[in-house]
């Protein structure tokens, strides 16, 4: 009998949680509903959206009215950056501080603001562990940026920044602070009461909700200009009919992820450590990318010496295991990671990197099978290369 596939790419997209699926089915089975409609059918959708808003807000200790539902974390990042900069009346020459290890959905709008709108961007470097260079960070803040936009937990390496201190410093310097927490929420505790932040990006499908939903938390009083206009939805900050089913699923997934975090976090962490131990023993030489830094409990990014990551990814796929390597371009081929490059990892080691990301459905048996399969594939690739 063919063994079932093993999915170790939760940072790309987590499997849909059963709670989320049920909530979505309830919406889909409930009949037509535009949450803005006055009638009972509309009110049913409105109720589902508002319940989800409470659940999403609760996941980060925020208030429901501070949540803007979007289509994705990418849209949330665009809204946070462009919307706050616009609302602040930015002019050419005004500064935004960010880092060299951001997700493309932050890099993109920053590059557009820089090239097309003449804003200055300070891209703060990271050290070899992936943690922000604190001196460079302070130096950037001395230049009085309008906005600091920063990834909290990195999607590729899982490296978690010391956000409390960093955000405090940025607030003290007068910056609006945006945190991309798409990979963080549901994996580690997060509270807007502890972290002095103004804008927080959340993703639905990274924590087991459906794709097609995201959220931006906006601290009360923060000015924000809508990116999508032409409707009063989301308090005039994001026009467009709400994706009610996806939002309902997002809310339930948030609730489930937070409820399970205390149990799942240590369990997943132990599995991740077992995977690392097994691969380190049997596939030497291997390098742990992000070593020494605090990391998400579920992410393992390693470079296998003399192994092309793309080849290893394909070999594992043919063996029924889903992992990732680098970032996929439009055509579906892999480009070397800008994140690993920013950490000072040379191109060969960046091309040798593979990311394993675990989650709530990962089992011990899967980890053992993965260790065996990776060992076989790595040894074959090395023998053909030599």
């Amino acid at each position, binding site marked *: 009998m063919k063994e079932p596939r093993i999915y170790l790419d939760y940072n790309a997209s987590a499997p849909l949680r059963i709670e989320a699926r049920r909530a979505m089915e309830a919406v889909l089975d409930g009949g037509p509903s535009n949450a803005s409609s006055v009638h009972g059918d509309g009110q049913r959708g409105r109720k589902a959206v508002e319940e989800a808003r409470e659940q999403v807000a609760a996941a980060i200790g925020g208030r429901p009215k501070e949540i803007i539902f979007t289509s994705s974390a990418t849209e949330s990042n665009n809204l946070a950056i462009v919307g706050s900069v616009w609302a602040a009346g930015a002019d050419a020459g005004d500064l935004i501080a960010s880092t060299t290890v951001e997700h493309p959905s932050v890099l993109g709008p920053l590059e557009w603001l820089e090239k097309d709108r003449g804003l200055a961007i300070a891209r703060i470097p990271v050290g070899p562990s992936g943690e922000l260079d604190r001196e460079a960070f302070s130096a950037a803040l001395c230049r009085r940026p309008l906005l600091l936009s920063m990834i909290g937990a990195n999607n590729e390496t899982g490296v978690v920044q010391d956000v409390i201190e960093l955000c405090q410093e940025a607030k003290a310097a007068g910056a609006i602070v945006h945190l991309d927490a798409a990979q963080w929420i549901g994996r580690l505790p997060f509270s807007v009461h502890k972290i002095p932040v103004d804008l927080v990006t959340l993703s639905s499908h990274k924590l087991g909700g459906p794709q097609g939903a995201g959220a931006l938390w906006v601290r009360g009083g923060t000015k924000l200009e809508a990116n999508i206009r032409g409707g009063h939805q989301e308090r005039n900050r994001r026009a467009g009919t709400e994706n009610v089913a996806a939002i309902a699923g997002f809310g339930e997934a948030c609730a489930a992820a937070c409820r399970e975090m205390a149990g799942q976090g240590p369990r997943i962490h132990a599995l991740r450590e077992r995977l690392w131990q097994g691969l380190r023993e049997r596939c030497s030489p291997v390098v742990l990318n992000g070593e020494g830094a605090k990391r998400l409990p579920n992410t393992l990014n390693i470079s296998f010496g003399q192994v092309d990551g793309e*080849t290893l990814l*394909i070999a594992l796929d043919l063996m029924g295991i889903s992992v990732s390597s680098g970032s996929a371009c439009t055509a579906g081929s892999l480009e070397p990671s800008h994140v690993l490059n920013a950490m000072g990892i040379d191109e060969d080691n960046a091309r040798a990197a593979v990311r394993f990301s675990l989650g709530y459905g990962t089992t011990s048996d899967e980890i053992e099978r993965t260790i065996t399969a990776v060992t076989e594939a790595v040894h*074959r690739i090395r023998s053909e290369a030599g």
Partner: protein
Amino acid sequence: MKRLEGKRCRVVVAMSGGVDSSTVAGLLLEAGHEVIGITMKLYDNTDQELADDGRVLEGTCCSLDDVSDARRVADHLGIPFYVGNYEKVFMGAVVKDFVDAYASGRTPNPCVRCNDVVKFRSLLAKARALGADYLATGHYARTEYLEDGSVMLLEGRDVKKDQSYFLAGIPRKSLSQVIFPLGDMTKGEVRAEATRLGLPVASKPESQDICFIPNNDYAAFLESAAPDRFRGGGDILSLEGLRLGKHKGLHHYTIGQRKGLGIAAPEPSYVVEIDPGSNTLVVGDRKDVMAMGLFALEAKWLVDVPDAGYPVRARIRHNDVGSAARVYPKDDGRVDVHFDEPVLAVTAGQQVALYDGRRVLGAATIEGTLWEPRRG
């Protein structure tokens, strides 16, 4: 294909999205093999597909359309499919070589270089690393296994479609690791098979141009790739040194070219020499562009190195049927080729492929002529 009979092999198929490689994948799958499709991404055209004026650029490789065609075929067949990133090796080994060659007055053949360095080295290595028994491509060429276990490369059965010229320089050891399932077929037969297999690309037109050159405009490509290396116009001189006109930039010309020179003369003029040092183009009569021999470098052999004087048929470009010659391998990879009769337009940078009957012996990069009948 015969060699695979009775076995179930794992085969990686290099899929371009065209009808030939798609048919290869379909035929191998039908024969019971485990087929894995890989499209090589050689060149980043994602930003270039739409020119500034919004028009779609034609004839670019790894276009998203071609990748999605290959993906559709793989989906249709139900085989695993991947896009491999070969941009770095392609840039370094093929595009750079192409630009360098033109800048030094040569006329390169990038497909030859790509087969040697990218397809039958990097991609083959990936196929082996994936546990594949063979790499299969849609080339019209054949391999022949001799009794002593050695493998020979042969022309394809359809001489009009034969692509062995492009393969003459691939690593010898790759021959036992590759298969060319279309080698015994004609193009018409391949299209018929593609139709029978229901492949969504069965009626897709041929691509003839060099894959990374948009709109087949070499000059524009070179000028944008290395603006400082491709100078503008200069003098067209006769062999006697008389100024006959102006050229548009040396990268617009190749040896033996007779059209588009823009000079009025009673007899047709041929490009005889391209001299980047003085930025001049030298033209002459037909007899001035004939040569009795050539010397070539970086010889690669698919057989044991032949003895000096071994009789061969030498093809000096893809559409050349070949001329009778004798071959003189030298040290350091140099090889001299002495033609029985004078040959037109020996062109530096092109490949000379050497044949014994239908068997390919090897290839080398042409560096210059030997004994030009009149000027020598």
